[in-house]
């Protein structure tokens, strides 16, 4: 262990009590330069959480873009036709000059009567079905 030698009073300056410690740089020491906001932002971008968030956002946007591209274009709207108030005109047929003659009217009546007769004709008359009887006496 080394013993400290007592120094001479001439050469030794009076001891000054040390100044109380202050917070902050000590004046006289070299102060490192403060990082700018941009640098801080870039530093922030390098954090894994931010990178993950950015990747997720970009992925979602890409998905939306693909989905929109895949969708078929909707057909153009067809206007619904609305019925017109005017009816289809019936062609007016010109009657022949003898359509009012008795010969034609007789024919018309005869054909109508014949049509009614042929419609009302029945092949089998239910009142004419032969009777069903039991023949053998069974004694």
């Amino acid at each position, binding site marked *: 262990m080394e013993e400290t030698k007592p120094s001479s009073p001439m050469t030794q300056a009076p001891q000054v009590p040390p100044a109380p410690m202050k917070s902050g740089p000590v004046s006289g020491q070299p102060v490192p330069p403060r990082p700018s906001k941009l640098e801080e932002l870039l530093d922030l971008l390098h954090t894994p959480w931010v990178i993950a968030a950015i990747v997720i956002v970009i992925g979602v946007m890409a998905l939306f873009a693909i989905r929109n591209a895949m969708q078929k274009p909707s057909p153009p709207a067809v206007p619904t036709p609305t019925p017109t108030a005017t009816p289809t005109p019936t062609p007016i047929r010109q009657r022949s000059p003898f*359509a009012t003659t008795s010969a034609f009217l007789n024919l018309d009546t005869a054909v109508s009567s*014949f049509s009614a007769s042929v419609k009302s004709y029945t092949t089998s008359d239910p009142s004419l079905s032969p009777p069903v009887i039991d*023949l053998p006496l069974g004694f």
Partner: protein
Amino acid sequence: MRKVLWVLLILLFVLTSLRNFAYASSDTAYQDYLYQFDLYRQTYTDFQVAKNEYQKFKSLESQTAALDKTRIMLVQRDNLLRAYLLLLNEKLNENRGMGASEKQLYQTLIRNEVTFLQNHAQLVPSLGSLADASSVSQQLESHYIILQKSMRQTIIGISVGNLGDVRRQFDQSVTMAQALINATRGIFTPQKQATMDRWLLQINNKRSLYQQKIDSINSTNASWDTNNLDEMNRKFLGLQQSIASAKQELQEGSSFLGELVNTLRYQD
């Protein structure tokens, strides 16, 4: 003046009554047939009860009762068949589409059957035993197929006759249409005239097809060479279907005639 009015009124009443009577004769025959059928059902039930009692007890009393009920039932059975034949006869009388010779043919068939049934019914009161009753009943049984043939032949004849009446109206309409078309030659355009001629030809074709079917039906109806009742029923149904087919030809002809009339009605 008043007397004349009274005479006219009475004459009108008499004529109306006669007309109703003429139309109602087949209705009356039908009502009589239904009445005879009811009586037959009743007598047949009584006969069955008496027969069962006789077969159960075999006593003289039950035997006599069974013979009585058998007699009544046999007479009623003949009455029922005769009532049915008379109904057919009335239907023949009212038929307007049948020719006189055909009508006479069917009426002869009916008359023969009615005579047979009358003779058969006369045998019944003299029956002295159940064995006699069985023997008399067998006479009808052996004749039954001929009776059924005559009935079915007549029914088919009546149906064809009724359709013949409809055909007569068809012929009248075609004749009138033909006359009208001939009278109007030169009024319509040549194209329309040619169309109407072609349509008339098609209408006449329908008439020919109808006639072919009717000829075939008449030919089949004239010869019933079977003695089996089931086969007879099958043939009867087949003939009815053929009549329906012939009617279809007339129905199509009617539709064509309607179109022809509409064409004649308009100028273009």
